């Protein structure tokens, strides 16, 4: 089955090509069937691959030469490792459900087929990114993911906000991409290869023992820092400095893609796209790519404690920052968007403190419950036609299935046992604690409290109380309820894949040897996590259970509320210190160019222009000018020729 692994990304690509050619002539049902079946087939193959890996272990990469560049050949190929087998299953599962959901959500849209076409390309790009065995190829898919999100966020191109959000997403992530680009180039200059395994272990790995991080990370350290056969590192850098520099550059890419501080500003705006797109971006594709990058490059980060610390601190800071912003937003999708930023921070925090398994486990559970939250939000928006929390309410009775699904997602996000998020988030917190990062642990815990509060604030405002609008909300069709049900089930039970008494995922990811840091079970910390989550929910219930209380709380918190509500003014800050200065410089240079540089030219050549003006209307004028220049040329030429003769 692993030999067929290439089919996993190729099937959605085929759907894309089919829809590109014939999409406009097909009925909506046919379009949906093509796209959903393709991705569902990818899911089935992925599942088979994962089982195969569980039974027989990872398979060596299959590569073929792509381009001879300088003295080396760059190969492309695909690989099946424990990490990416799991990712393939997760990505294809969530994507298939989102694609199915879109059938109901996008019904009647003038560019229905185009929407599915872009979604298929998006899924292809993400699956390709996950399955590749090579950093350059990874980067290609990475950028393709970015472009697809640009197209999809800006899908309703006629909305100015959507157009602006799409551009913002592309440019902000582009800043990160340049970091990754430079990091990739430096790694190539250092190791003369783009293959992950060769970068990490100095050779194409043929023995399954070392594959995909099954190899002790120390092996890479040995290879990079002291190993034989290593080329001179660029710029005469010391090995430790080189590893730290490249790891940080790679991380810059992940910061952009996974919306970490300070490049987090694009993700909340990106919800201007259709809601299924948000679900895809926030759960299975785009933002997951950044975390996957750090996980795939884990040996590099392991070899640099400094870089790992940066990852952990950026992650922790982002987790609390976004959670604080999420407390006060009025737009249902915006709250969920900030929760994504915050949860991605947890994953980075995990990877930064070395908790490889916990980070990936949280990536997986988060994909389920975040897709669920976005799709339920989509279902709500579809029904009430507003995104403002204060115009909803009372949907518990009107939309019972959506209510139950959202509740499952919210409990998972809040980290309430036994829902999925509890297990993974707790692992991260306990890893932070037991690795001695008490500050990060405390930060994570506070963020967890805020998380539980803001998501239940959304829940009470949306589903509790009485409906405030004038429409008649009801459940969507089967295409919408099936995905909700499936994801709700996963958000409820996915945590059991990796519990202290049955750590299946840990075993699966580490079946060739321990990777990173795996905290010991700490029941005390588990209780703390659960209590903090419940406390957050309790506070939300208190605040929104009775009218007026929330407003009084907001007033009491004064400027803190204003800060949070205005997202700590990051957009305004960046506008002042980056966007406007660049515009101003550009305008100034444009002026200088036109009136000063070209002005000088005109001044110098004024004679020629006026001289030519008299001849302008004669046909011969042009010829004469040319003749003049040629004559002048020959004269200058003779002088120069004489001069050069002298030089020699």
């Amino acid at each position, binding site marked *: 089955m692993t030999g067929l692994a290439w089919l996993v990304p190729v099937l959605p690509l085929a759907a894309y090509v089919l829809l590109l050619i014939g999409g406009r002539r097909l009925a909506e049902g046919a379009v949906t069937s093509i796209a959903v079946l393709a991705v569902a087939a990818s899911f089935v193959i992925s599942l088979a691959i994962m089982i195969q890996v569980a039974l027989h272990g990872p398979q060596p990469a299959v590569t073929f*030469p792509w*381009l001879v560049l*300088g003295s080396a050949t760059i190969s492309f190929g695909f690989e099946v490792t424990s990490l990416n087998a799991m990712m393939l299953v997760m990505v294809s599962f969530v994507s298939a459900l989102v694609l199915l959901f879109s059938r109901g959500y996008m019904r009647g849209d003038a560019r229905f087929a185009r929407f599915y076409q872009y979604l298929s390309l998006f899924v292809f790009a993400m699956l390709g990114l996950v399955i590749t065995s090579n950093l350059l190829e990874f980067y290609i898919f990475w950028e*393709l993911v970015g472009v697809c999100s640009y197209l999809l966020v800006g899908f309703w191109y006629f909305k100015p906000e959507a157009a602006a959000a799409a551009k913002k997403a592309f440019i902000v992530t582009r800043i990160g991409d340049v970091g990754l680009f*430079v990091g990739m*180039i430096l790694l190539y200059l250092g190791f003369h290869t783009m293959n992950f395994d060769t970068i990490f272990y100095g050779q194409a790995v043929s023995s399954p023992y070392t594959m995909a991080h099954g190899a002790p990370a120390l092996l890479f350290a040995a290879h990079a820092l002291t190993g034989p056969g290593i080329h001179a590192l660029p710029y005469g850098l010391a090995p430790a400095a080189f590893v730290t520099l490249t790891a940080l550059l790679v991380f810059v890419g992940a910061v952009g893609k996974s919306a970490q501080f300070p490049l987090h500003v694009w993700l909340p705006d990106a919800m201007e796209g259709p809601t299924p797109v948000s679900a895809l971006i926030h759960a299975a594709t785009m933002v997951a790519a950044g975390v996957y990058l750090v996980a795939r490059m884990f040996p590099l980060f392991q070899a640099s404690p400094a870089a790992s610390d940066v990852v952990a601190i950026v992650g922790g800071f982002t987790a609390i920052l976004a959670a604080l912003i999420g407390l006060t937003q009025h737009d249902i999708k915006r709250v969920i968007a900030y929760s994504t930023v915050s949860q991605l921070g947890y994953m980075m925090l995990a990877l930064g403190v070395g908790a490889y398994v916990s980070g990936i486990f949280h990536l997986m559970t988060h994909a389920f419950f975040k897709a669920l939250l976005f799709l339920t939000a989509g279902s709500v928006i579809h029904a009430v036609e507003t995104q403002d929390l204060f115009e909803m309410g009372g949907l518990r009775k009107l939309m019972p299935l959506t209510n139950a699904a959202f509740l499952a997602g919210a409990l998972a996000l809040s980290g309430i046992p036994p829902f999925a998020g509890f297990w993974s988030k707790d692992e991260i917190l306990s890893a932070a604690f037991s690795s001695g990062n008490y500050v990060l642990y405390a930060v994570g815990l506070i963020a967890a409290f805020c998380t539980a509060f803001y998501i239940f604030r959304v829940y009470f405002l949306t589903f509790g109380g009485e409906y405030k609008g004038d429409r008649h909300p009801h459940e969507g069709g089967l295409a919408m309820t099936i995905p909700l049900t499936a994801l709700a089930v996963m958000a409820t039970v996915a945590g059991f894949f990796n519990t202290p008494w049955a750590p299946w995922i840990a075993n699966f990811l580490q079946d060739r040897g321990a990777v990173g840091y795996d905290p010991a079970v700490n029941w005390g910390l588990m209780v703390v996590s659960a209590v903090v989550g419940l406390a957050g929910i309790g506070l939300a219930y208190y605040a929104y259970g009775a009218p007026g209380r929330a407003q009084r709380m907001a007033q009491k918190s004064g400027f803190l509320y204003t800060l949070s509500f205005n997202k700590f003014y990051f957009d305004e800050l960046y506008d002042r210190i980056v966007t406007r200065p660049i515009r101003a410089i550009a305008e100034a240079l444009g002026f200088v*160019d036109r009136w000063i540089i070209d002005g000088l030219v005109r001044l110098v050549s004024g004679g020629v222009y006026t001289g030519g003006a008299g001849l302008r209307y004669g046909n011969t004028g042009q010829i004469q*000018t040319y003749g003049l220049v040629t004559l002048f040329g020959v004269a200058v030429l003779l002088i120069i020729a004489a001069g050069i003769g002298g030089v*020699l």
Partner: protein
Amino acid sequence: MNDALFLTVLLPALAALFVLFVPARAASAVRGVSLTAQLLALLFALAAYIGFNKGMAVFQFPFAATWLTVPNAFGTTPLVIRFAFGADGISMPLILLTGVVGLMASMRSHSIHERVKEHYFWQLLLTAGLYGVFASADLFTFFFFLEATLVTTYFLISVWGNEGRRRAATKFLIYRGLASVVLLAGFIGLAYSYAVQAQGASMQVYLGFAPNFLSLSIPQLISEAGKFQLSIAAQDALYLVFLLAVLVEEAFVPFHTWLPDAHEQADTGTNMLIGGVLMKIGLYILLRFAVELLPQGLQQFAWLTGLLGVISIIYGALVALAQKDWRRLIAFSSISHMGLVLLAIASLQAVGLQGAVFMLVSSGLLTALLFYAVGAQADRTKTFEIKNLGGLSKSLPVISGVLLVAALGSVGLPGMSGFISEFALFLGSFATFPWLAAVGTLGMILVALYLLYAMQRTTFGPQRTEYDQLADARPVEYVAMAVFVALVILIGVYPSVLGDVVHTTVQSIAGRIGG
């Protein structure tokens, strides 16, 4: 088969002459002749490309004819002026590029309705000149065709351009005319120095020393460069002469102001030929003559050259951000992209040189496509002003889509030709100048800024009522745009289609100059 290159030059030139004899009334006959000649020339270029021996680094498809013999030029030895053609891995892709852009420009010129016959006459001559420049294997031949491109482009701008056309055309003529003069000085110096050196004359030769043989053959000069080195002083001086010529020729900052003016005034077909092919000649000169024949001079001034490249990258991108007219924006974008090539050439790394050739081809295709798509929308909206556009995705979905592809390709999106070019360019640049290259990467962000900003205002946004009833791409436009898009994606996905032709030559150059 050896005549293929010669034929690519001859066919458009003959067709131009033929067009003169077609009655002006028979515009469709003129178009037919032109299109046929361009297509045939392209097929010959393609045949040569396919038949090119990828394992050899020498000039292939040699063809030479003596034009003029000056008896007793050097004592008793005559000076032989020849037309000689040939191509190696650097020029071969550019010849094919000329063919593609030439044919598409000819198709695009269907929208010209004034002085049709003359337009095609000059366009065909320009195409012949461009083929000639890249296919020459001789200094005289090269210069002859370079001058041909100068005159023909001048007429194309000054007759079929917009209101400010004469001024722009004159500016174009003066700048590039001066560049030609400087270049000619460089050529003479080059041939003279190599001749003197080849005869083993002492380094201190006085003016008036007459070598008994003067070779203008490029392959021969290259083979001599493999045997001995010119003196450092000669290389430095000559390199600076070449660099000056290239800075003007290629519109590098601060000698660039003629290019935006020319692009703003010229018609779309001419813009495709200028932006797509003509603006690659300067850097081709640097690759052909400076890198191969004056490596130590280049090395001496590598940092200066790289710095000039970076200045153009950043300056071009920032000024592009301030442009209000699509054509001027594309002009500055092209200046910025060519800055990348200058930086990579200065790195003197094999990968960098390979990236340079990739970028010349990629930027040629993408610039021509950008001009084509922008021209197609302007045919309909009657404007190139970005602020007057908006929401075109609705009424012109195909043209808008192609414009987006071209913009994203220029941004360097992987899967299209721009990315692999940038990757190779920066690989070379980072190996030699980490700091300069790091500053250069800012261009990768700025390019996204100005192109996506322009896209946001052109195709996104609410549709303007005046553009409700526009008709989308016609079949002929479909074909042209599809060809460009297909080539850009082909190179992006399977770069070996270009890389295999370039690689051997570049490796051999790098081996010779020790890069």
